């Protein structure tokens, strides 16, 4: 899902220098894994870029857990999947979809993208936007953000990098020269870990 225009998709509920988490405005409508999103900083021209590395839907109440709702009811009717939501319209009000993004760079109002960490984190309660194709192209022109992902801890780094590269390639209509360039950069970064490089390249080429 690559769109021509950017869209407001969620609101930041937790932010640090290296990552941010947002709740989506629409239930179950999170940006795809590996997609590029943008958040803003209050009182500044900083636009922070992040890659979505985790998506989850759970209770808004701390400690709350979803219970099994489907199956046969007392009147004999059976409800599954979408029907469960129709039968329990309150669910969409008490559940929340959230996604987390790894900060991979920022822009400081001058149009130049930096592939390192921003001076300030994204601002809590500000919106998160999906990035339009043109912005994805601009951000992925250089491969400097690969390193940030590879060395991030406690996230599925290899899968995230592979997904990000696949999406960057798709934005270029699967241009071979982009894939070659990305492959070379990866080979350089992982010259000491042949197994990891091979598994990464397989995930990108899929």
């Amino acid at each position, binding site marked *: 899902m690559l769109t021509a225009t950017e869209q407001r998709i969620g609101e930041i509920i937790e932010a640090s220098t290296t990552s941010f988490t947002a709740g989506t405005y629409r239930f179950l409508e999170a940006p795809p894994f590996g997609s590029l999103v943008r958040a803003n900083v209050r009182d500044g021209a900083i636009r922070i870029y992040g890659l979505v590395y985790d998506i989850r839907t759970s209770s808004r109440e701390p400690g709350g857990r979803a219970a099994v709702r489907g199956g046969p009811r*007392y009147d004999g009717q059976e409800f599954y999947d979408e029907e469960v939501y129709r039968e*329990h*319209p309150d669910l969409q*009000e*008490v559940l929340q979809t959230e996604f987390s993004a790894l900060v991979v760079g920022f822009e400081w109002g001058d149009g130049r993208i930096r592939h390192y960490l921003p001076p300030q984190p994204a601002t809590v309660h500000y919106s998160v936007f999906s990035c339009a194709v043109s912005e994805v192209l601009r951000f992925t022109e250089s491969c400097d953000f690969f390193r940030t992902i590879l060395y991030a801890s406690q996230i599925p780094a290899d899968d995230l990098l592979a997904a990000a590269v696949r999406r960057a390639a798709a934005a270029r209509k699967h241009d071979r020269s982009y894939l070659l360039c990305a492959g070379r950069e990866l080979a350089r970064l992982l010259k000491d870990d042949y197994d990891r490089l091979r598994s990464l390249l397989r995930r990108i080429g899929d």
Partner: protein
Amino acid sequence: MELAPWNLKSIAMPLDFSLLTGQVRALGASLRASHDQRISRIEWACEQLHAQADRWEHWCQQVREKHARAPWLLACPAEPLDVVRDLPRCPQSYGLAASDGSQIDLDRHGPAECYLVNIGLVLLRYGEDAGARLWTEPRLYYEEKDLVLVDDRGRRYAVEGPLVHATRDVAEGQMLAAIARELPPSLPRLALQDGTLIRWPFHGFDPFVRDHYLKGYLEALDHLQMAGIPLASYISRPRAPEVTGLVRLFADPELERAGSYAEADPCQGLIDQLIFNALLRPGQRGPLFMSMSRINVEHYDAHQIHFFYLNTGRELARVEVPRWVAAEPALVDLVHALIYDQCQRGAGYPVALARAHEQAVVRETDRRTFRLLLESTLLHARLSTAGSLKQASKERTIV
């Protein structure tokens, strides 16, 4: 009992289980003994209800004559006493409104005199165009008229404790009446509250204070009645002994032995819930009764609260409705079906009430934040934020 030598260094121990275990065992044995007795009392009470089933109007008359003299609570039958109604069909589409509240009481040792009432509100729509709206309406009471009630002779009543609770009860009712009218009239509708509709705590107030709050609450019921939206309340694990009182009246119609029931009470240990648990299968409701609580009889007029017991499949619940609902069999069926449906959707407890409660609840962290907000606002307004010294001493121990 042998005491520990006082000169031995004692070790702090929260609970001495070696001393407690024996007592817990004794409790178990005592419960076992009374259990068997209770079973036979329940059977006896069920038989009595059946035997007197057709004479319900006679007993209704008797209860009305004697309730003021009876030393126990009484229920006035409004239907034959052996009525058992199966679950009516639940409409495919229906709308439901619910409210629940909580409060932060006035804190005499806090920085400012005020109290907060937070009402959780729920609108649910099932079937066609299903949807839900959950929200809260907090209101801060700080004006003189909120803090002190003054009667026409100039007597002043400080609003705190039970009166703050009463303010919340009234707000729950009024907001429920307001939001229920947003439900589309083309749908079967229900306004639902948690707990009893009988505001019996008001009965202990001075008549002026009682009338002040009761008027506010009954006005809400007027609005619902005029809008044609049935009202009901759900009481989980009810402890009421009113039908039990009626059974006791069967055995002692002239209240001759009323004073000597401590030993020979045929209904000892019984409550209504135990009796109807034996009579109702899942989905069924028992007969309608009117509560003979004094405040209900004397002040509720057109809204006099009636009730029935309902087996929800998970528990035996008490459902209360005002008289204008009890008088319409179609509305009683609707209340019966919708509450049962709500319990099934909510794993044993009506979803709408659970959601309203989740919205309304004020947690300890919320209380602290509220206090901080209050203090910082006063600080900005250049007013003293000093709480009492007693409060300060509670927050910090000086050693």
